[in-house]
């Protein structure tokens, strides 16, 4: 507990934060599961030769008679193919069937969709469009592959050729070329065809560019937060950093306008950080794992994995960071009256830390309540507000200068029973708001503000009134690959992107979509390099950031360090981050 006293630190948090060195490295998009293991499927389809001049009429007639299956649009397949562009397998039979090319009216080959309903109907439909054979031998031998059951003496002859077609769009241009040469001409559309299977490439590229320059710093910060959590004995060494890309953009813009290095302002885009505190949860009113091992040192429970000591995923770094954002909004006085009226079940602070702001770690408190003093304001050109500005601070902003005094009584011990009448007023379901009358605010902040006059305590978390909603359009940087629970938690929170260092992969994680080696060993045809696949780790790969099955999706990136930091080696034991 001593780590979280309110004594003035010898070195200001701001100095500590600004001294954190960015990691050298780059970010790599985490592929979606479908990109790593593209769905494969082939079916038989039929090809017929029609008069080139009637091509559009053929399409109309076919689509009217045999509506396309919307669940299998097959948009990647070309409808028509000229004779000389036919894939070898088809061309071979065409050449056998119609040897005298020059004698034919100009023709083109059309692909008839899979699962043909009735060959006779097709025959009748296409008959008017069959190219007129000028000097064709009367009854060419039907190729072996043809599925036409009828006798060959019909005239004019409609010959159906069979070919194999891929029913899913190609995963890359190379695959498209390969299929075009061997099966049937296909097109590769990098955007539209994969919109649910993988992020839009333009969006991915744009957001990766905005993340890349500062990712090394924010991942480094996440590790510092992780270290703090571990060293305090509160949790495992896992940290989360929530960044607002809009503030990042403002920082960049200002730096460009004013011609300075934006590096020292990078911390300003951090809206909240949180460390793991799984050992700080008291159960059944008894002591927590942390209480059992007092002192500022890593908790012995770190050294093994015993699920009884793990506290629960709602004490994981990501879940706590999400909760800090929510809490900031709940503390907004404009929201609270109505929230109390809505109360049916008291908000259960499953995380005892969260109900006591004074137990936030130094990093957590700094970013949630203090660091906002240098937020770049659209209207202001100087990033340090003048003293006059700080006098105009709203009650809400002033409130953030100290821990919410009325929040402290809400602990797990005092939580009320579920069966409360809806209009309970004796036990506020939320950390109670300070009175809106500024005069009733405690006169002096309990925490020192490091630099008087230079600090304007304010939150950079947009309130609901300002349009803030969950973690929409925010990025989260983590020290480790998050567990499945936290992965879905970040999707439910609508983050824009999630970034973690590759060295922080965990077998219990939910973001990686394949082994590191294999990600680069996927061959052009979508197959996995056999040698690389042997390196497959003993784990599931979910790629939860981007699953076509789910309603919400985020961009996922791994930060690949140029040099592995020996202070943060891969974890030796498996646990949930």
């Amino acid at each position, binding site marked *: 507990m001593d780590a979280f006293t309110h004594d003035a630190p010898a070195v200001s948090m701001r100095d500590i934060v600004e001294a954190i060195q960015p990691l050298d490295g780059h970010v790599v998009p985490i592929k979606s599961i479908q990109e790593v293991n593209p769905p494969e499927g082939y079916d038989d389809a039929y090809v017929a030769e029609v008069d080139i001049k009637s091509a559009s009429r053929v399409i109309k007639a076919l689509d009217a008679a045999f509506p396309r299956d919307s669940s299998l649009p097959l948009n990647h397949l070309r409808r028509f193919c000229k004779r000389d562009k036919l894939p070898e397998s088809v061309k071979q039979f065409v050449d056998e069937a119609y040897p005298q090319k020059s004698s034919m009216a100009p023709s083109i080959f059309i692909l008839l969709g899979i699962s043909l309903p009735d060959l006779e109907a097709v025959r009748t439909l296409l008959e008017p469009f069959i190219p007129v054979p000028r000097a064709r031998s009367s009854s060419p031998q039907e190729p072996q592959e043809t599925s036409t059951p009828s006798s060959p003496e019909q005239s004019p002859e409609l010959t159906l050729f069979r070919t194999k077609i891929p029913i899913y769009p190609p995963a890359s241009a190379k695959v498209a070329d390969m299929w075009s040469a061997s099966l049937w001409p296909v097109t590769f559309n990098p955007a539209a065809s994969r919109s649910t299977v993988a992020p839009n490439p333009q969006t991915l590229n744009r957001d990766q560019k905005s993340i890349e320059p500062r990712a090394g710093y924010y991942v480094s910060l996440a590790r510092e937060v992780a270290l703090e959590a571990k060293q305090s004995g509160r949790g495992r060494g896992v940290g989360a950093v929530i960044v607002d890309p809009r503030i990042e953009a403002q920082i960049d813009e200002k730096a460009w306008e004013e011609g300075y290095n934006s590096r020292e302002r990078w911390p300003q885009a951090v809206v909240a950080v949180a460390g793991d505190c799984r050992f700080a949860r008291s159960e059944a*009113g008894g002591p927590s794992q942390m209480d059992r091992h007092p002192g500022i040192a890593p908790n012995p429970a770190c050294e093994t994995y015993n699920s009884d000591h793990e506290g*629960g995923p*709602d004490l994981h770094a990501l879940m706590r960071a999400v909760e800090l954002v929510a809490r900031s909004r709940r503390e907004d006085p404009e929201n609270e009256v109505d929230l109390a009226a809505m109360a049916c079940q008291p908000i259960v602070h499953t995380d005892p830390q969260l109900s006591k702001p004074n137990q936030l770690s130094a990093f957590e408190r700094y970013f949630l309540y203090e660091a906002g003093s240098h937020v770049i304001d659209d209207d202001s050109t100087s990033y340090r507000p003048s003293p006059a500005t700080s006098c105009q601070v709203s009650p809400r902003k002033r409130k953030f200068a100290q821990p919410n005094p009325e929040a402290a009584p809400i602990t797990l011990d005092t939580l009320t029973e579920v069966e409360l009448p809806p209009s309970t007023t004796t036990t506020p379901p939320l950390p109670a708001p300070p009175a809106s009358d500024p005069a009733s605010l405690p006169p002096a902040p309990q925490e020192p503000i490091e630099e008087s006059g230079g600090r304007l305590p304010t939150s950079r978390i947009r309130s609901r009134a300002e349009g803030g909603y969950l973690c929409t359009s925010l990025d989260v940087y983590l020290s480790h690959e998050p567990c499945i629970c936290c992965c879905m938690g970040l999707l439910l929170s609508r983050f824009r992107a999630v970034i973690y260092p590759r060295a922080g992969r965990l*077998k219990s994680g939910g973001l990686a979509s394949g082994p590191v080696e294999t990600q680069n060993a996927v061959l052009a045809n979508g197959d996995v390099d056999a040698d690389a696949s042997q390196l497959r780790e003993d784990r599931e790969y979910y790629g939860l950031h981007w699953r076509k099955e789910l309603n919400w999706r985020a961009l996922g990136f791994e930060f690949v360090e140029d040099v592995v930091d020996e202070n943060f080696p891969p974890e030796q034991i498996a646990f949930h981050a």
Partner: protein
Amino acid sequence: MEQEVNSPVIREDSRHGYFMKQALAMGEKALATGETPVGCVLVYNDKIVGSGMNDTNRSMNGTRHAEFLAIAEMLQTYPKSAIKETDLYVTVEPCIMCTAALRQYGIRSVFVGTHNERFGGVGGVLTVHSDKSIDPPYPVYVGLYRKEAITLLRQFYIQENEKGKIIDEVKRGEEKNKTRLTLIPAPNPRPKKNRALNTTFDFEDDDQDFMPIV
């Protein structure tokens, strides 16, 4: 995904039915407060030791699902290790987040009202309860009071339509009454077609037996 296996058939008139009724009552509460109507109870030694309902709107935290609230309540009185002898009754299939959380918490078994094909973690989308993991798997039984669970959800979507209208009026009318905006489930809720409560079900009427998954 679901398959009938040789296991004891669990009927609605059993103790399991009683506990699911309590979970449904929590869902009703959620409905009454404008939350997605999902409710659950935790049962340890035949006693309800925790109950929860969705609380995402009020808490402004999208991860505040019923299961987390129920576990938090239970841990006020019981140690975490007791969850290993605890069963969960939940009206709607736990989402992937909650499925994973329940596994980390070591839940003994989970009884589900109806599937969730958008977020479900025990068969709806993924099978996180039984996939390879560092924690033991748990069994899941789906279908107890399925109709009631579905009806609750349908009631919610009808309510959503009406609520959308109210909020639109508030937005257009008086801006000072911002507090009512907190009722909005999302900044721009998609307009939904007004429709009456659907009371038909597309599954067989006698499909009341449990269908264990895995």
